[in-house]
């Protein structure tokens, strides 16, 4: 997956949403409830924080039976993240692919002229 964002908050938001957009499609409205889940993470560096963030979302998604369709990133700095993941019932979605995890393999995160860019390989 290659992801771009104008800043780090944008990059983390786009990456998190992309994980669910590539694997699922909203098809039904069986449950209209939206659930907010606070996510707070810390890591030794940005790359670890990025992988941990994606894995936390995948893990929460499977554990709680939710697909996350909105991510409110309050803070990404100094190896810590504070966010709220907004999900709705997985029963509202057609899930095509099970993503097991995000990996460190060939992981790249870099800042360029027009913002941030990341490349991450997912185990599917």
């Amino acid at each position: 997956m290659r992801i771009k964002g104008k800043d780090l908050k944008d990059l983390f938001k786009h990456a998190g949403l992309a994980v669910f957009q590539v694997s699922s499609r909203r098809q039904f409205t069986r449950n209209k409830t939206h659930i907010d889940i606070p996510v707070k993470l810390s890591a030794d560096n940005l790359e670890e924080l990025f992988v941990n963030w994606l894995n936390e979302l995948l893990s929460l998604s499977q554990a709680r039976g939710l697909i996350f369709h909105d991510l409110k990133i309050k803070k990404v700095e100094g190896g810590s993240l504070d966010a709220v993941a907004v999900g709705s019932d997985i029963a509202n979605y057609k899930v095509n692919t099970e993503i097991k995890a995000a990996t460190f393999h060939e992981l790249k995160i870099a800042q360029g002229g027009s913002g941030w860019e990341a490349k991450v390989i997912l185990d599917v």
Partner: protein
Amino acid sequence: MARTVPNLTMDDIALEKIDDYRWRIPRSYKPGMRVPGIIYADEKLLKDIRQDKALEQVANVAFLPGIVKASLAMPDIHWGYGFPIGGVAATDIENGGVVSPGGVGFDINCGVRLVRTDLQFEDVKDKLKELTYALFSDVPSGVGSKGDIRVGAKEEKELLVKGAKWAVEKGLGTQDDLDCTEEEGAIQGADPAAVSERAYERGKAQSGTLGSGNHFLEVQAIDQLYDRDACDALGLNSGQIMVMIHSGSRGFGYQVCEDYTRSMVHCLAKYNISVPDRQLACAPVNSAEGKAYLGAMKCAANYAWANRQCLMHLTRRAFERIFNMSWQKLGMSLIYDVAHNIAKIEKHIVDGKEKTLCVHRKGATRSIPAGHPALPQKYKKLGQPVIIPGDMGRNSYLLIGQEGAAETFYSACHGAGRVKSRTASARSTNADTLLKELASRGIIVKASGRETIVEEAPQAYKDVNDVVDVVHNAGLAKRVCRMRPLGVIKG
């Protein structure tokens, strides 16, 4: 004598040819390699293998502290994450040997079981559609599928320690099933306290589910016998109906791997370990972190054995309904169940001395010969059944472990091995065309989604016949019989 074969392809790695089925990546390829890499392949397979970065990963695995003999690659090797898929690496635990969650993978104890029946193709051909649909209905499959086999909160920890025995005690199988399962369906040393709450939460409700991706349940017919004596010993004959089940530890295993990869990334600095890829994060087997991972990994392995036992129970029940006969009368006994994503503490001879090793098999099957102490009594004279699934359009194999596999820590391949990524396969395959083509060859496919069908198309895989040829000719396991698919359930 080894000779260098340059320019075999565009790839930079100049391999040394050892013989027609063995190739070496010398230690000089990359500073930091502690041992050479050895790849089991013929020239035809090597061309496919060189299409991705798997050989580079074989070299990277050779950096692991305590690795002995070589970083090994089976002929179905393909690009993984950190470790190649089809990789085998053994570390000497008395000499700083490490364990790496990446050397097992996210789907801990993904594995295969093979069930025989007394049915012949003639008995099944007119009921194949009904049988395939019944299996699809009875065996939960697909992303996020939930099973009818419920595990109470208190039972969960019992299941993680007892593995397949938990299911048998629930009436979902027999002692004979356990005898015919690697580690008797429960590897010793599982530590439920080493498992995170999230892993429990993630694995909840998934017992007795097949999963998705490359997991499958197939009704197959034996179409080729190679070793008549072994077939007789196993009660197998041409045209006989078999069932193959491929599944793993589902979300439970993914979470265990993720939890410990996350913590072991920090062990690299703590134990002064240098590896070229953080997905190879590891810790000494004898460290607190290494022991905790192995305790949790064994829980996931046992979860997977319980899961495949439940899946076999559901399969037997579907057969009973369609053929109106008990599974015992249908002769549905388990040939064997093998893990192909696991790390195990085993004793092997290295440089003439017995060593206690942590053997990582990441997409590789244990392959022990006749007489080995780890064999159940019924296979002592025969050797371990080695089950090799292929793709949904070609074949699968049953082999038997050979003494020649001592050079691979008694390991063989685990499948056909991908040549195309899921995305590339999906782009180049039309589901309707593929289903029609398979139907014209008598293969019925039922899947939860069309995406799985195109991602798992036969052309996404190497020809398993070529892969098994190398395993047989290299002396790692010998061919017993070959099956062809009839009814395929995909997640």
